[in-house]
């Protein structure tokens, strides 16, 4: 069994065992098993890092065996510089999320932990799959645990949120399924993604395929104007669910653009790049402004996610290596930062049971240690140099300026809005005098919460100070992808 299979199936096996054997009266044992499962899942991804060959765009750690013979579907796994970091990121976030749900979840603990473990394995599968159908199976299967996570452990309006999440994203992916089948038939019965990359397609087919993929991936990212599900879902999802959603699930969509839309339909991608850039800029600027007026912390961070993901798609569609690498770096950084932001909100919510900014004020007086973490993550969210948030945004803006000064200019304005909404929220929640007795009674974070936030803080700081290991891994693959996308498929 290869390393990637281990990375996928270790958490899933632990999850299934928890589902089968976990009992509600043994919550503590269940939590420990879940933590061991998440840690094991993370540890098996570490040899990937030591074994990864830099400087090549080839797939590595490839596993390939026949899965469904009749449709020529293969269990074909591999990672390149584009997908590599997301495998580690997913496994890492999974550990954090298990810790985050430790005492907070008291109802159906085994199902909760199992959902997250299985979800994590499925998402790693999405990043590793080199077969179109295998990708789709993993991509869609993630809906089931996430639906249950939102619906069972979510907030008051959880049912609306769970349905909106499921149906909204299912609509997009069903259209993608039609495109996948079309490609399968055009490629004379092959679901192999590499074969699809080389497949010549005419302009009409490329446009249709591009938009079919767009339906799934733009909804997942989410790009403006199909982002409306995200704030609703984030608000109602439990803290862990929000963290995974923002940190990993949104990246599935962005990753889909890189693996499918761009290389399979390069001419359509070039043709519609201006549309994509426009949508990205709207996300960056307009949604940034929308974030500013939110009263609800989770909604604010949700809109901020949409704005940050706008940088990612902007970076992809200006077609230069700095922009694309910047987009990927931004995806990783946003994984750490948005995860941390949601977990911080969770810390407050667990104590006060309110997400309204107005319910807080002066938290720094009662929770100084926590406020320090929160300030650090807030700074990372507005892209302070030295934090992870800076690197990707800076690369994308630089690339955008190179591409077109005004686009660069417009995207850079987002740094101002980002600072405005994040710091204004920070000011209203944390600074000033203590405003009410809830805040007065707050207890500072305990050891568990400290570990959880510290893990993320270290990651954010490390990536901010030393982004080179991250970009080194992806350079060759990004260059390879751009070279591929630059060649027209029309002849």
């Amino acid at each position: 069994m290869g390393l990637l299979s281990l990375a996928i199936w270790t958490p899933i096996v632990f999850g299934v065992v928890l589902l089968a054997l976990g009992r509600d009266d043994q919550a503590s044992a269940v939590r420990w098993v879940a933590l061991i499962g998440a840690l094991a899942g993370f540890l098996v991804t570490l040899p990937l890092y030591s074994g990864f060959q830099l400087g090549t765009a080839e797939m590595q750690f490839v596993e390939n065996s026949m899965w469904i013979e009749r449709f020529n579907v293969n269990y074909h796994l591999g990672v390149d510089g584009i997908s590599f970091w997301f495998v580690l990121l997913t496994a890492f976030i999974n550990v954090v999320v298990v810790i985050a749900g430790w005492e907070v979840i008291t109802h159906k603990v085994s199902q909760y932990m199992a959902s997250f473990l299985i979800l994590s394995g499925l998402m790693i599968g999405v990043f590793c799959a080199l077969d179109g159908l295998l990708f789709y199976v993993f991509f869609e299967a993630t809906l089931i645990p996430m639906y249950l996570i939102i619906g069972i452990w979510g907030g008051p309006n959880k049912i609306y949120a769970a349905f909106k999440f499921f149906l909204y994203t299912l609509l997009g992916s069903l259209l993608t399924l039609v495109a996948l089948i079309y490609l399968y038939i055009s490629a004379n019965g092959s679901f192999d993604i590499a074969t699809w990359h080389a497949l010549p397609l005419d302009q009409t087919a490329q446009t249709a395929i591009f938009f079919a993929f767009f339906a799934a991936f733009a909804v997942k990212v989410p790009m403006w104007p199909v982002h409306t599900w995200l704030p609703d879902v984030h608000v109602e999802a439990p803290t862990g669910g929000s963290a995974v959603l923002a940190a990993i699930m949104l990246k599935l969509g962005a990753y889909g653009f890189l693996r499918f839309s761009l290389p399979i339909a390069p001419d359509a991608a070039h043709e519609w790049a201006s549309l994509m850039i426009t949508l990205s800029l709207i996300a960056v600027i307009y949604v940034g402004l929308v974030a500013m007026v939110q009263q609800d912390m989770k909604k604010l961070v949700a809109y901020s996610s949409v704005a940050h993901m706008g940088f990612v798609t902007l970076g992809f569609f200006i077609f230069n290596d700095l922009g694309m690498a910047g987009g990927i770096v931004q995806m990783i950084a946003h994984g750490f930062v948005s995860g941390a932001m949601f977990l911080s909100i969770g810390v407050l919510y667990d104590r006060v049971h309110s997400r309204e900014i107005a319910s807080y004020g002066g938290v720094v007086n009662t929770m100084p240690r926590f406020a320090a973490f929160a300030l650090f993550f807030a700074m990372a969210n507005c892209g302070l140099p030295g934090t992870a948030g800076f690197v990707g945004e800076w690369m994308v803006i630089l690339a955008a300026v190179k591409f077109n000064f005004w686009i660069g200019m417009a995207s850079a304005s987002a740094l101002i809005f980002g600072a405005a909404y994040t710091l204004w929220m920070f000011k209203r929640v944390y600074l000033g005098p203590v405003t009410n007795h809830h805040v007065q009674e707050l207890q500072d974070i305990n050891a568990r919460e400290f570990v959880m936030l510290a893990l993320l803080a270290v990651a954010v700081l490390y990536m901010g100070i030393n982004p080179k290991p991250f970009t080194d891994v992806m350079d060759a693959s990004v260059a390879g992808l751009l070279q591929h996308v630059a060649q027209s498929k029309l002849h």
Partner: protein
Amino acid sequence: MIDEISWITIFPEAVLLAMACAIALLDLRAQGPLRGYTYTLTLITLAVVALVEGFFASTGLTLYGFGNMVVADTMAGWLKCFATLAVMVTLVYGRPYAAARDMLRGGELFTLSMFALLGMFVMISGNNFLIIYMGLELLTLSSYALVALRRDNAQAVEAAMKYFVLGAMASGFLLYGMSMLYGATGSLDINEVFSAISTGHVRHQVLVFGLVFIVSGLAFKLGVVPFHMWIPDVYQGAPTAITLMIGGAPKLAAFAVTMRLLVEGMLPLAIDWQQMLMLLSIASLFIGNFAAIAQTNVKRMLAFSTIAQMGFVLIGIFSGVIDGNTISTANAYSSAMFYVVSYVLTTLAAFGVIMLLAREGFESEEIADFAGLNQRSPLYAGVMAACMFSMAGIPPLVGFYAKLSVLQALIASGQAMHIGLAVFAVLMSLVGAFYYLRLVKVMYFDAPITASEVVAGADVRIVLAINGALVLLLGIFPAGLMALSAQSVLQMLGT
């Protein structure tokens, strides 16, 4: 003539017939409210028959018997094997349910089920219009009686009446169509009808006239729009065990008859029946899915969902390409077969859970009755959720591959309009996802109305767990069942 009889072709049917009669007599010795003796005998008989059929199917032989009136090929073997297993599972789930409703005072449930199964066997193996019709009548007459088995229940009797009247009409349609074809081609034998049509000397109008009636009759049996009106009423009115008996295994037989009549008998008329099936399919997908949303009764909801699912099966059947290319034609038909088999598997588990939750004097038919099932029994909630996600076509459950194969067949047929149709079909399955998800929501997100334990006998528990596991496992390893369907259909087309 006598040397053409070839008894071996109907060996399983003979066993089934003999044992059905014997069990009807031996049932006199059965005691206890659950009729354990009859039950065990029936299950043993069915297990033997299923084994024999499975073994026969795996040999890959094609045998004709009784002067070409019956055929035993790989497709027949597998479909009969699955139908037998489906009836067994139905009886396992249905026995405690039936006993609690005073339906086990005699052993009719078992005997009639065996006769219904025999009818399915004859339909599946029939190679002659009259044989197919006979099998169909044996199946439907047994089914009418089964629906009316709870004779002091007004709802069940009403359902039986409705089923009988509409069913008789549909049989009439089918028979009328068959007689037209007989008149035009001069033969009842499917192979000879095929040859006669292929010559091109038979008047096309007459053939199409007969074809319309045959398609109507089949559409009724499959339960597709606009011949679907009986499905919701009968599904809801019949005792749940009987609903499963009607809604499970017979779909396999209906699929087989469709294959025999339309493909084996009237492939040269494919241009005509493909269009009819396409319209039926579009209407079924639309009406089935939208009507299911409005239902509050689970059985009624599943009835409309069945209509929609059969719409998908029809997609597989009408997507067969007719250009002499048997590989792509087989591709389409085998996707339909895979769809039907996985549909039956999922339906069995779903109805199994419904029956499990029903208690004496309580039917557990409303969606609200499933509230908080996850709190009461995570296992059964899990099985039901797997069924719902599977019917909605979410991977990695078996229903996804069923939808994938039919959509693949549809797009592979290479017509631009078919891509539009594929988009329509996936949009309809999005509508479908809504009501399937609603049941999951009720089970997982709502608080339970009652905290009572869900009790079940060991046989029900084990079979239901295996059934639920199969819905998932066949989703993770679908290759075997797909290969089996492909091989069955290829062999049928090859002969």
